């Protein structure tokens, strides 16, 4: 540990309060700006999609907006608070408690009466009938932290069987609990873990093969499902979502109606949409439009243009995380950022793919935009960690940043004497390797 730390943290040993807090005014404003824009975009979409049904069923048109705004505000504050901490200290002491908490909460939701059923899905944790939050979202945070920590500590052992089994074993427990009540979230979790392992491993081809096989299974699930029905292992109704995906109009009762309504919304938007607030489909046709299907209403109201804007905003967000990851002072910081980037991009891609009926309905929410307090809170926690990593970026020089560079620049400093020396060392090493081979 100490040798690595010396390398990546520029040899500075921190003691006392600086171990806990790392207060340097090296804030990634571009990332914060992107997050704020997405939160504002999300609140706008939550209100426009929910006010009609909220007025109808609750009698308060801003019911969802108010709740989401309060939670978002709190979560933003929590994100800033978390970013002031030294992520290394946070991960060292926080990972395992968070991990254990997520496993315990998932188990409670799955197996005890503390799990609250809503819309037929027992996904909420609550006390006395009041749902508090979805532990699934906490599991996402916990797994990102755990995998990042394990990959950092295992180093090259990740390519050994023991290391692989350790990672799979540790992550497998919460993923299994999630799988019990929420298949789609468990697929995302598996994908996050596998992608992170692929990135970390030198045997990337093996992992790539596993990842592709995983995707292939998901992709051929439809044919596989038919085959399983044929041999009597599965019942037809268990494949509803796949049938719906294949032909939403024919399976309208099983959920195809909702899918078609979402497609109608997207198809009727045109390039600039019907204008904010003017969706017809949210008036009862797209059910719970503020949840998974929010993107379809977005396209209906803001058009392809609005969709491109939102996707570009997500793209910029991921790009910014990538920059921070690249400049992370250590592998822990890198893997944390990588985990967040993978998480966000998977959810965005899968959600939009579902809404456009590219893949079967999986019930994935669109980060920041879909209504949901737990999702926002733990997303913000993830971004708190990312911002904490950004504070310790090795390459970013505050003095030389222009606005443009702060948005798009890699922030790398010009090569220092040390780096030059390292480059010469690398050349020597490569020559030596060649010599060995010959």
């Amino acid at each position, binding site marked *: 540990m100490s*040798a*690595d730390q010396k*390398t990546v943290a520029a040899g500075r040993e921190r003691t006392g309060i600086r171990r806990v807090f790392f207060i340097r005014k090296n804030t990634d404003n571009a990332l914060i700006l992107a997050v704020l824009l997405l939160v504002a975009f999300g609140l706008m979409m939550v209100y426009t999609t929910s006010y009609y049904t909220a007025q*109808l*069923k609750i*009698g308060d048109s801003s019911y969802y907006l108010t709740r989401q705004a309060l939670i978002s505000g709190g979560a933003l504050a929590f994100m800033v608070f978390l970013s002031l901490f030294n992520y290394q200290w946070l991960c060292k002491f926080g990972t395992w408690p968070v991990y254990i908490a997520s496993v315990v909460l998932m188990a409670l939701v799955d197996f005890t009466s503390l799990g609250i059923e809503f819309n037929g899905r027992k996904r909420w944790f609550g006390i006395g009938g009041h749902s508090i939050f979805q532990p699934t979202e906490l599991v996402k945070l916990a797994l990102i932290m755990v995998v990042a920590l394990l990959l950092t500590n295992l180093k*090259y052992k990740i390519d050994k069987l023991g290391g692989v089994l350790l990672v799979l074993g540790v992550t497998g427990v919460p993923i299994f609990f999630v799988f019990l009540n929420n298949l789609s979230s468990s697929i995302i979790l598996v994908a996050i873990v596998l*992608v992170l392992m*692929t*990135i*970390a491993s*030198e045997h*990337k081809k093996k992992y790539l093969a596993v990842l592709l096989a995983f995707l292939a299974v998901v992709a051929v699930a439809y044919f596989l499902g038919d085959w399983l029905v044929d041999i009597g292992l599965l019942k037809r109704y268990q494949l509803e979502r796949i049938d719906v995906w294949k032909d939403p109009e024919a399976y309208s009762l099983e959920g195809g109606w909702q899918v*078609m309504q979402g*497609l*109608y*919304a*997207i*198809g*009727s*938007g*045109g*390039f600039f949409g*019907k*204008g904010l607030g*003017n969706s*017809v*489909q949210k008036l009862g*046709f797209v059910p719970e439009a503020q949840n998974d299907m929010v993107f379809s209403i977005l*396209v209906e109201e803001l058009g*392809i243009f609005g*969709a*491109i804007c939102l*996707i570009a905003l*997500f793209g910029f967000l*991921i*790009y910014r995380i*990538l920059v921070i*990851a*690249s400049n992370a002072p250590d592998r822990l910081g*890198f893997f944390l950022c*990588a985990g967040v*980037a*993978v998480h966000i*991009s*998977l959810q*965005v*891609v899968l959600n*939009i*793919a579902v809404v*456009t009926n*590219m893949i079967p309905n999986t019930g994935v929410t669109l980060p920041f935009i879909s209504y949901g307090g737990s999702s926002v809170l733990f997303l913000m926690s993830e971004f708190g960690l990312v911002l904490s990593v950004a504070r310790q970026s090795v390459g970013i020089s505050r003095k030389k940043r222009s606005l443009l560079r702060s948005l798009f620049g890699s922030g790398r400093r010009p090569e220092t004497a040390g780096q030059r020396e*390292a480059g010469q*060392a*690398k050349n*020597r*090493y490569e020559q*030596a390797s060649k*010599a*060995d081979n010959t």
Partner: protein
Amino acid sequence: MKTSQTLDPEERRRRRELKNKKYERAIRSRLVTFTVVAAVALIALIIRIFVINAQQGDDYEISILSQQDYSSTTIYARRGTITDRNGTILATSERIYTMILDPSVILANNAKNENATLAAVNAVFGFDIADMKKTIEEKPSSAYIRYAKQLTEEQRASFIAYRDEVNAAESAKETGYVRGVWFEEDYKRVYPFGTFACNLLGFSGSDSTRGNWGLEEYYNDELVGMNGREYGYVNTDGVAERTVIPADDGNTLVSTIDYTIQAACEKVIANFAATHDADNIAAIVMNPNNGEILAEATDKLFDLNDPSNLTYCYTAEEIEAMATDEELEAARGAMWKNYAVADAYEPGSTAKPFTVAAALENGVINEHSEFRCTGSRSFGSGSYLTRVKCNNVEGHGYLDLTESLMESCNVAMMDIVAALGAEKFAEYQSIFGFGKQTSVDLPGENGGLLYPADKMGPVDLATNSFGQNFTVNMVQLASAFCSLVNGGSYYQPHTVRQILSSDGQIVRNIEPVLVRETVTEETSAFIRNALFETVENGTAKTAKITGYSIGGKTGTAEKLPRSDKKYLVSFIAAAPIDDPQVLIYVIIDNPTVDLEGGESVSAKLAIALEKEIMENIIPYINLEGEGEVVSHIFDTPTVSPADGEGQDDSGNDGTADDGTDTAGTDGGDTTDAADADPNLVPAAGVPDMGGVDWNEIDSQDGGNTDSGNDDG
């Protein structure tokens, strides 16, 4: 590994560092690769959105439009109110509510809301929970089930209060919220007095846009208003919008009917009908000076709130016997029609004053002409000989013109028209408005049948002279009679004096329409005197009410076929006769009488009815004058009209009491009728009249005040 062993520690550290660096660069590039893949996926999704829009955009837009529910909700207009001349509400529309259950909302969240909602409905309305549960769970995705109709405003208000209380309570979080119960507004036609003025008012049933019979039908366009709408539509940008067009409530009719007078007429008719059978009994009261119909009553009653109910007019056996729908329809039609305008009949001797007036106008006779009645006149000769008898077959002997009316001598009339000639007679029939509709504002008027002058033989002319062989309706005869006694002005009869908007603004005043001048003032004065003498000393002596100057003419018409010896008896009277303020016309069609009890079918039956009505309304309308009427009538000016001379008023105590009560309460208070609130609903029974807007009577309240005090 062999090489590394040979290297010095410094070199090994460098190599490890280099390896780390290389590894870190590798993982960074792999992360970039992943995000590039994700970016490609996002671009693919954007392309997919483009493709959806380009390929199916139009189809989907049509799908969206076609699944929009454009069915708009009607906001019902309130049908206008009908009031009497003083604002007493005779017909109105009460707001009622239809309860809509919305299962899609009730069942939306969980069973808690459903239970709470159904429990609330049960608590307020008492509907069975199990039945409601079954209803909504049969159609869980429906949003519109009309569950209960005709709920009152109070019921709705109490439900809303109950609902708000439940939803506001903290415990609602556990026990569920009341949701998904809506109310739709509608109106129900209500007639506060049931059968009151039923033939005149007509009715409007479940379809509030349609009136049947009477004012409801004639003034339907005024009453119906315009329904409003709340509707959704999709504008040119494909955006759904909702628009509300508010309902335009119907206008209020202020009719010329006076509640008290109408009530008196109905009571008198009901009393008579209780002891006598007759095909029809009808009375009409008019103001002779402007054509306003103050009351119009028949014995064919029905409940306006339940117009199909035949029991008011038919016995249970009769209803039982009506086997077919056609028979039922016919029975209802007979009950609903307004005898006073819908039926034409031979008027009999009440037509004689018209004959005399026509002859006076043409100068073929004068006030001093004398006639000799021998009991009959003969026309033609030989086998064509026709003898037309007088009512007194013994003959009246020598009569002057006034006496010919007093004694109702047919022979004198035949002599008069013989001098007048058919052409002039027909011309005057036309001037008096016979044979054509009066344009009274009531539906289904029967204009009657006349002989045209060129087809009128001597016998036809002779019988026409005393009111046989041509037909009139009641309004026609009463209106013409008004002109005869008021100095010759024929006003169009009407039953509505004012139309108000729903918020009480005057839309239109219906002014009296002077149609034409029928006779001169001299002729009118002569007729008035003759009518007065008829009551004082002639055939209508029983109509006399001591202290009041009444002039009238009886009528006893033989009905067709003559051989049946069926009669239609009638009496028409005006008071005070020198300046008539009220005209009452009563007919009794084919009465059956208690012959052994000394009764006979004669105009006295009609006179008795007229007298009772007159006695009841005299104190109410301040019918008195000082110094302008013949003095001997006012020997006892303060006598209570109801108690009168004790003559001929057995069996009408109740009616008389009504009359005197009204006088006692309201006598002398004639000033504020014009300000009466048209929306004022009377508490019960006889409404608070607040006096009468009696335009033409304004100088005669001294005597009445005395009368009222005595009564009280």
